[in-house]
């Protein structure tokens, strides 16, 4: 019955074991005894049940709405990406912007090589874009993203093996993995349209909008986007023949990277263009400047 520690001695430590309050060496000794003692196993199980009830003593605290929605969106994206194949989900009925830029990203965005196209647009550029740039997302981009996700998973496992001593790295990897998985979830659908946003700015920021038409998910990835002036922000617009719909505001990271996700149900045939404008902080009900990036469908 005993395995290095007397039964009575182990029994007296079961409460602390159930609360996970033993020091490592004592915990190991008690657990070694418990492994070979049916009486202590049953007692420990009962004490663990009691200990678990303590969680109810904490007062419930609803998450702030923005935080609640942010976590939910990431969870749903991760769960969706966790499947090999998934059923289409119900169309979203409201716009939900997940984030502006993606801090702590180790972003070498796994998209196809892009050749920037400089164009100049007049004030009437909104609807004048005629050439459709829509394409079904290439297999190469998906494979690259999958490989990167696998690499992130491996790195995450390795960081966990370090037993908490590399918490900062773990957090960073987890954040990167969640971001990547959320992005992949919106990129791998069978009906993903890709729009390349050409720039009107000589600094040539480049961007692509991925529109998962089944999930109503919009993923915007851009590079070399200059920081807007103080008090200003960028705003994404979904342009239809009758309206310019805000898809939210975003700010680039210090190195000019942007990854923005939004959910918005839009009939497939109604999109005429997507565009980015420079707006006052907080965004505008309607665009107040000419687009600095635009793509037509």
């Amino acid at each position, binding site marked *: 019955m005993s395995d290095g520690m007397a039964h009575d001695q182990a029994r007296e430590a079961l409460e602390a074991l159930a609360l996970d309050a*033993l020091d490592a060496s004592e915990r190991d000794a008690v657990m070694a005894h418990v492994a070979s003692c049916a009486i202590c196993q049953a007692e420990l199980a009962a004490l663990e*049940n009691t200990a678990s009830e303590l969680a109810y003593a904490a007062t419930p605290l609803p998450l702030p709405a923005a935080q609640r929605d942010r976590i939910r969106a990431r969870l749903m994206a991760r769960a969706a990406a966790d499947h090999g194949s998934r059923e289409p989900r119900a169309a979203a009925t409201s716009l939900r912007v997940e984030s502006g830029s993606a801090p702590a990203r180790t972003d070498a965005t796994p998209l196809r090589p892009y050749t920037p196209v400089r164009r100049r647009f007049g004030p009437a550029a909104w609807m004048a874009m005629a050439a459709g740039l829509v394409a079904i997302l290439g297999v190469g981009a998906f494979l690259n993203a999958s490989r990167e996700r696998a690499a992130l998973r491996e790195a995450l496992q390795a960081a966990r093996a370090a037993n908490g001593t590399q*918490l900062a790295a773990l957090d960073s990897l987890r954040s990167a993995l969640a971001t990547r998985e959320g992005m992949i979830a919106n990129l791998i659908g069978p009906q993903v349209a890709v729009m390349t946003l050409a720039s009107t700015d000589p600094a040539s920021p480049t961007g692509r909008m991925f529109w998962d038409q089944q999930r109503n998910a919009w993923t915007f990835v851009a590079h070399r986007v200059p920081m807007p002036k103080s008090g200003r922000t960028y705003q994404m617009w979904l342009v239809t023949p009758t309206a310019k719909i805000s898809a939210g505001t975003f700010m680039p990271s210090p190195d000019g990277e942007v990854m923005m996700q939004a959910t918005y149900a839009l009939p497939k045939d109604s999109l005429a263009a997507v565009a980015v404008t420079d707006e006052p902080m907080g965004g505008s009900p309607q665009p107040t400047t000419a687009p600095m990036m635009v793509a037509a469908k």
Partner: protein
Amino acid sequence: MESEDEALVRRMAAGDDQALGVLYDRWQAVVHGVVSRMLRQPDDVEDVVEETFWQAWRQASRFDRTRGAVQTWLLTIARSRALDRVRALRRRREEPLEGDDGQVVAQQAAEGDPGQDAEASERRTIVVAALSGLPPEQREALELGYFGGLSQTEIAERTGQPLGTVKTRMRLALQKLRSQLQVLGSDAGEGGSG
């Protein structure tokens, strides 16, 4: 009979991510309450809340209804993940305890109950009542261990009490809590099952 939460977990195990969303909507406030009690930094809290539900999603097929209610399973995950974070933070920064400073659990119950599941509310009422029946020093030992993530040695250092005293208090506290919960649970009838 299968409860609503059990049905959600079963659907999660089958890969229904909408069920995860519903479970999250139902229990985010309760999970957040526990995690906030153990961690102070908003980023840590947000991360642990997310990881709690993510672990529930990944381990849904392992849920065993004969071992307890879904919310107890979920709160156990939450506490475990928060505890990992508390201890990792302490190792990394050697910071003081992230959890509460021996605040009285019974006082929190008076702060109001933002409309959660009736069974969980009943459970909370019972647990808080049981805790309030403990001597303050025993309750403190329980709370420092459970919410603070402190070992008995760390509690002894923190409170200035001999280690043997801390061990005795913790042992008596959990035993008393166990018997109190049994009594209160049976008084509450089926509401005390768990």
